[in-house]
């Protein structure tokens, strides 16, 4: 007896779920993702397990060597280095991700509008993008920080605004291409509004490219935030950031170089992992670059 095959259509696979499976099979990308998870886990959950205060000073015990109480020693004011690395990591890693969300939102909005509407809208918006691309982002960030101050929310927005033009460019390029596809025409024939066409049909197709760029952007954002804090213009002490820990450590570089090694190493590892993850995702979404 022949059994009839069940009448089910093949499940529709989203592009992103395919990407996820490919990433799981890529050792470099997977390794980078695991290290990042560990870094974020340590920064956000670590302080629950390691409860030493990152701001408690102990001048009699300054620049101490590692001990049972202070596993990584203490800094110039006797503060626990491990606690500061964890709390600084939380600030640095959080700022970098949130600022890239700002960049992704602003860049997507402007890039998608410019790519979809064309004409005058495109000219005006893309000229705006060119303008921001032409100003070296660090100068722009310095200008903004000098008037708006350097509280963490301002640093987040300012760093995010330093990267949105890159996102806008890539979203613009993708949306310009996708808007000519037949399904957009079909959507329009069915009476979909422009807003619905952009955000429900066209933009989701451009999102993977923007997300890859944003992953690389997080690496840039970590370097920018730590650079700002290193210059004394970012996160201010007593709040710790890997950047201001490095600035602080510079004074004691000749006597206690290890104080500069920890934050520098963590910045490099985090940036490296975001770069590797971003490059892997880019290769997986666009194999031409390999």
């Amino acid at each position, binding site marked *: 007896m022949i059994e009839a095959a069940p009448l089910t259509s093949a499940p529709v696979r989203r592009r992103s779920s395919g990407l996820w499976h490919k990433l799981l099979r890529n050792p470099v990308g997977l390794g980078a993702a695991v290290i990042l998870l560990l870094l974020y886990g340590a920064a956000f959950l670590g302080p629950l397990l390691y409860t030493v205060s990152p701001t408690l000073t102990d001048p009699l015990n300054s620049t101490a060597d590692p001990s049972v109480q202070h596993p990584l020693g203490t800094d110039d004011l006797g503060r626990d280095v491990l606690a500061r690395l964890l709390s600084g990591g939380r600030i640095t890693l959080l700022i970098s991700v949130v600022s890239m969300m700002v960049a992704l939102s602003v860049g997507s909005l402007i890039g998608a509008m410019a790519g979809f509407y064309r004409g005058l809208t495109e000219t005006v918006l893309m000229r705006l993008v060119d303008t921001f691309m032409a100003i070296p982002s660090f*100068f722009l960030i310095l200008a903004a920080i000098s008037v708006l101050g350097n509280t963490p929310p301002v640093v987040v927005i300012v760093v995010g605004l330093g990267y949105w033009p890159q996102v806008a460019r890539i979203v613009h390029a993708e949306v310009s291409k996708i808007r000519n596809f037949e399904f957009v025409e079909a959507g329009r024939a069915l009476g979909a509004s422009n807003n619905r066409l952009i955000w429900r049909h066209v933009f989701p197709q451009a999102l993977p490219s923007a997300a890859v760029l944003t992953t690389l952007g997080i690496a840039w954002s970590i370097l920018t935030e730590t650079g700002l804090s290193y210059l004394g213009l970012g996160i201010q002490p007593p709040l710790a950031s890997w950047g201001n820990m490095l600035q602080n450590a510079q004074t004691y570089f000749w006597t206690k170089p290890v104080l500069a090694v920890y934050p520098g190493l963590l910045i490099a590892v985090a940036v490296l992992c975001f770069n590797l993850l971003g490059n892997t995702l880019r290769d997986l979404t666009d194999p031409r670059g390999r």
Partner: protein
Amino acid sequence: MLGFLGRRLGQGVVVLLLISLFTFFLINLAPGGPSAAAKFESTAEERAALSKQFGLDQPVTVRYGLWAQGVLQGQFGTSLNSGQEIGPVIAQRLGITAQLGLAALFLSVVIGIPLGVITAMRKNSVLDHVVGTLSTLGMSIPDFWTGIVCILLFSVIWKVLPASGVADFSGGFSFGEWIRHLVLPASVLAFVMLPNLLRFTRSSLLEVLGQDYLRTARAKGIGEFWVISKHALRNALVPILSMVGLLLPALLSGSVIVESVFGLPGMGRLAVDAALGRDYNTIMAVTLVAGGIVIFTNLLVDLAYSAIDPRIRRD
């Protein structure tokens, strides 16, 4: 050709105008900007006098007009902290940033492009993997950290290069002394550009290497060196050049940090000091000049395009 350049020049002027509008209004309209001076604990007369002194009693659009007029005449106003004319200060600082930037650009091009070519030709070899790993590492290590470590190694431990400052030529110019002071900061700054340029050269060359005209060139019996340098690289050079133009803002941004690490009195350090001291006039001027440099250099890149690719001239 002239039409092409004219169009690019026109676009550059528009972008520069937008930069000036953006920086001026960011500084002048944001809370905490110059107008915050009016919030000091002071009498009404004192506030009015201060406002008049800084021209804050006029509408912001009029102030922009006056500022822009000054900028067009090469006058950026005076520093709010030192009271000095900003134009000459920037001109003096620009020299140091230019030396640093050009040296870093030179190192990036001289090392990055040949290495990119070699790794493209030996794709997936051990060398390709080693260079690829090193360039990813180079992109990831913060330049301020590289700078500090270089100072520690070359200046403190081995004592072969100066830790900071610029060469002193009061006793006459010495090429050796100039290079000794420049090599460390320029090498650190090159890390901003070199890995990107290397990777980009590799990928643009890889795209070209499979083309039919290269097979034709080889079939005609042209040596491999000439096939690559005259045919492949020349076609890959247009995107590489545009990458150089795109990386320029990053190079200027990098100079802010490198100048601070090595204590070089360049434009980047001027921007940091102005931001720390809330010297708004200087910040506006420095941002505008930095944008102007990027636009001007991109015009030069456009000129170079048309020299490399005659199709652009005819366009």
